[in-house]
């Protein structure tokens, strides 16, 4: 099986796709020192590694590839508002309306997003930020939430249009609704409509107006949760993470992974969303994109403005952005 990031020995030279990647990357000067400190390397080995990192960084810069530096684990910020992100390299990803598949996005409200990334050699954290005047964190009839996604090719040839039959992509999807589920509680009817009333829910426990999932533990009370009972991942009333992992082989093929190791967090502050996506470089899952220290890969970004009716294919997205992980 081919992989998303190329091994260092295969990917040291310039590649055509790297030329289309926008922006040059800057590296944290502290990275080298931290790596040395973490590994307790002797002065000679440390110098050797530093030179290797610097060589990769310069080559990445020459190729127009976004360089993801390596820092010690404690220095990898999971909080998207962590000040450490300010000194991490960044790239501006241009976004445009999705107009390839039905239904297209009729109006663009986001033109770009800022992407940053840091790794520790075993994990990588992506930080995505984009402007949004107001957070939309819940859903209802005709109401949608903000969301974002990163996609990685599982095979190097996958088109940015969510892959194709032979070249699947691996997607990390965050939704503001799920963040609210995790930060507060599962968003229930009374959270949307505080003054609503219903006389009865069969087999529910506890006092009215009843809360999902606590008052619906009796399996008989879950008979009307058809999508949940069918195992639909969007209907998970016990959600613990705001990030979902999915695979796709083209439009309309999005499928959730039953098992997921990715996590993340989204925070809206001062007119912008700031998200972190956290995942290990390597997993045992053949559906996952895999990464190597010193390897190159590509990442795609998508953003949904729920307040403007963005949902599903009605989204903003960008072409592939090439990146290289620090050796």
């Amino acid at each position, binding site marked *: 099986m081919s992989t998303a990031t190329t091994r260092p020995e295969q990917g040291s030279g310039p590649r055509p796709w790297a030329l289309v990647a926008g922006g040059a990357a800057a590296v944290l000067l502290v990275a080298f020192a931290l790596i040395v400190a973490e590994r307790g390397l002797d002065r000679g080995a440390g110098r050797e590694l530093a030179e290797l990192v610097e060589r990769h960084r310069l080559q990445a810069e020459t190729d127009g590839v976004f360089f993801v530096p390596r820092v010690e684990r404690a220095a990898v910020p999971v909080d998207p508002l962590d000040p450490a992100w300010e000194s991490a390299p960044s790239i501006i990803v241009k976004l445009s309306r999705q107009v390839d598949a*039905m*239904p297209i996005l009729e109006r663009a409200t986001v033109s770009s997003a800022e992407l940053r990334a840091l790794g520790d050699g075993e994990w990588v954290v992506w930080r995505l930020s984009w402007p949004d005047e107001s957070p939309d964190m819940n859903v209802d009839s005709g109401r949608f939430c903000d969301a974002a996604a990163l996609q990685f090719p599982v095979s190097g040839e996958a088109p940015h249009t969510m892959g194709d039959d032979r070249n699947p992509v691996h997607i990390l999807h965050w939704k503001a609704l799920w963040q609210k589920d995790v930060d507060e509680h599962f968003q229930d009817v009374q959270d949307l409509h505080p003054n609503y009333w219903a006389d009865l*829910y069969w087999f529910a426990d506890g006092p009215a107006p009843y809360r999902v999932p606590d008052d*619906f533990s009796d399996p008989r009370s879950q008979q009307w949760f058809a*999508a949940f009972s069918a195992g639909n991942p969007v209907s998970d*009333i016990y959600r613990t993470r705001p990030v979902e992992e999915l695979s796709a082989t083209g*439009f309309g093929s999005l499928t959730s992974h039953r098992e997921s190791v990715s996590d993340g967090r989204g925070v809206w502050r001062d007119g912008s969303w700031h998200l972190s996506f956290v995942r290990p470089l390597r997993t045992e899952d053949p559906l996952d994109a895999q990464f190597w220290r010193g390897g190159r890969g590509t990442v795609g970004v998508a953003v949904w403005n729920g307040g403007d009716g963005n949902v599903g*294919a009605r989204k903003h997205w960008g072409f592939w952005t090439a990146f290289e992980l620090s050796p």
Partner: protein
Amino acid sequence: MPKRYNWQLGREMDYPFEAPPPARQVAYVFDTNKCIECQTCTVACKTCWTSGKGQEIIFWNNVETKPYGGYPLEWDTRLLAKTGPAAWKGTTLVTPTVFETEGDKQPPNGHRPAVDDYSSPNVGEDDITGTIEMGAAFSGVHPMWMFYLARICNHCDHPACLAACPRQAIYKRDEDGIVLIDQERCRGYQECVRACPYKKTFFNVISRASEKCIGCFPRVEQGQVALCVESCIGKIRLHGFLTTRGEPRPDNPLDYIVKIRKLALPLYPQHGTGPNVYYIPPVHVPNGFLEQLFGPGVEAAKTMYRKLADDRQLLGALLLSGASQRIITRFEVKGDEVLGWAENGDEVARVPFTEPVYIRKHYDEVHNVYRHNTT
């Protein structure tokens, strides 16, 4: 976009998918002249299928008052405002369907109701078309009118919900044409809600997925009529199957009423979805209004309905409404009765054309009480 023939429009039309018709098509005849809007159907459906959390404002079955009522609010007039009125040349639709104006990068022409539009399912209930002047007296024919319109999913031949779903999470069953949303696959984009001209798909805020009338398929698979049909105390509903691969059968009550006699008409056929709830138009309502709702066959249907007493085959088929919990697939008029058979050959209905009348004494000697005439 592929072309499909729509028999209700008398022409081919665009539709994003090619597919053969199902082996047979579930269909219903609703007699609007008999409906009293008791909502027993609504309650039967809601109690069974949509009484869970997140389904508070979801009614797979509802009964509304026309012309002003509608659930969700103005579901039909908002689409008509976008499409304009339908125009027919004879029995052929001239104006475009919802599939023929948006191109292949947008879903069918539709609109998305706001959450408040679901909050008052009885708006317009019992409202008539005008006010009655002080001192007015009834003198033959009321100038004002209203009627009740019972609505469920139409399990369309060419479903707009299915056409709109970017995930192909909606499918039409080959065995009976029932249209279902795959509850495992739906991701709650609400494109189906926007596209369905009848607004009979709904977003569930707890499931975060869309839901719709399932045509009581677990009952249909056992040969039983839908709950809304069985519970109808006015016996306005007849549940059966239309022949799809071959000529309509005169001994199939649905084929006979809908396809052969054309007494019952589809609702808003101009949208092109091929809806399969067929309405006998209310005979007291002006044709101008009804022809936008039911297409060009209104006057012929009304005339036929007024002469039902002399039309024993058609009346016989209609008498099967509410006559059995089993789905009747074959019927025959014999003497003063109409007989109906289920698919397995069981006789499941035997209805007399004239109900026997029993006249009882004013005084009941057994119970020592006087009987009161309450009719």
